């Protein structure tokens, strides 16, 4: 009998507790390093091996490249149809040069689906934005390698 009084006690005890609401647009969530947001692309790193496009379960990556004068292959286009991307992270996992990585951009609400075609420039800008936002993750070690750049690294 009167078990509900216990419940009333519980709710009363919760009353003064610390509130957990995150005032989202004002206070932004802290994402861990591995967070899988929209991709970022290091255009110069890409060797146009097409692995990412092949592994993608939803076939949303399309890319093309040409071999330049210096025999080095260059990326011409790189599009992610973000409409169908399921952020599964497989593309970054297979990329041999770590050209495609995940960023922590996550606000992608758009009025039109067309805006969700992310091209090379957008992805590159996203990379720059990421570097700006997380300088601490790009500390170069003594040899000048990007030692702590671990965010999207498969083990």
């Amino acid at each position, binding site marked *: 009998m009167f078990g509900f009084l216990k419940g009333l006690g519980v709710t009363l005890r919760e*009353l*003064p507790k610390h509130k957990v609401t995150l005032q989202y647009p004002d206070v932004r969530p802290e994402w861990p390093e591995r967070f899988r947001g929209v991709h970022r692309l290091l255009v110069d790193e890409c060797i146009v091996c097409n692995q990412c496009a092949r592994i993608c379960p939803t076939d949303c990556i399309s890319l093309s490249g040409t071999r330049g004068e210096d025999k080095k292959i260059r990326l011409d286009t790189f599009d992610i149809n973000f409409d169908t991307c399921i952020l599964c992270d497989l593309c970054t996992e297979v990329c041999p040069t770590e050209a495609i990585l995940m960023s922590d951009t996550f606000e992608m609400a758009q009025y039109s689906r067309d805006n969700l075609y992310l091209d090379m420039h957008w992805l590159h800008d996203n990379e720059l934005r990421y570097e700006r936002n997380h300088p601490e993750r790009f500390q170069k070690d003594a040899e000048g390698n990007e030692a702590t750049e671990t965010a999207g690294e498969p083990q």
Partner: protein
Amino acid sequence: MWNWATHPISGLSFLGMVIGAVVILLLTLLVVMYSIYWQRKLIGWIQLRIGPNRVGPFGLFQTAADVLKLLIKEDVIPSKADRVLFLIAPILAFVPAFTVLAVIPMSQHHVFTANVSIGALFYLALSAITIHGVMLGGWASNNKYALIGGMRSAAQMLSYEIPLGMSVVGVVLMAGSINLNDIVIAQSRSIWYFIPQILGFIVFMIASTAELNRTPFDLPEAESELVAGYHTEYTGFRFAFFMLTEYVYLFAMAGLFATLFLGGWSGPFLPGWLWFALKVFLYISIQFWIQATMPRMRVDQLMTFSWKVLLPLALFNLVITAVLKAVV
């Protein structure tokens, strides 16, 4: 001009009446606005949230913004609805809700409220009219959920009206008057009636919660079963009217509760209106607290509870009160 309650109506006293009504209306709207705000804040805090905090300082204007939104929304009338009934139902529900406020003595020198000699009865009688509004609204919407919701509320409010009335009778017996003012004065002379009338107090608490359709008796608008109950099809300001009705009743019931069991405006040190406000606030807060804790009752259990538990309890209380009254 202000003592129209005791004199024949003259032009001046009529003006007084009108002014009184308007002032009470404004006051009520203010109270409703901030009880909604308080509801959202308090329940928010209990649920580890912070509640409204965007519109105005601490979100104080949130309700105003909501009301404004409701007012400028399109007033949709379903084409298959019974138009006339659909249109008047919210009004039918609201008018008695507002009218009952006339008899609640909000302060010692009650200027804007009537000193009706049948106060308690007046309240009960009028509040029963609201059921029609609710039921007709549910019926006229031509929506199955609304229909079930409307029927449920009619059944529920009717069955809880009786224990509610019985618990009030206990107080009336003790005070020896149906006039709410007299009841308050009687309490200020002895003690607040929630002590001698503890049984009636409990019955009143439960039955009033059910009358107000609040958790755990919020079946008519049980959103997990009936979407929104009787006001499923209502939009815009008609919906606002139903909401308003609900919260005006909350205020009125809190007033009645304070008057009957907590001595109304009477109390030491503080001025009468402040005592009244405090008691009303207490009742409203308790309602919200319960709302944050309880699941909903089941409809058939609700009925049995009213008829088999509350009513006998209330009758028992009545008998005890009568016996004590005769003996003491």
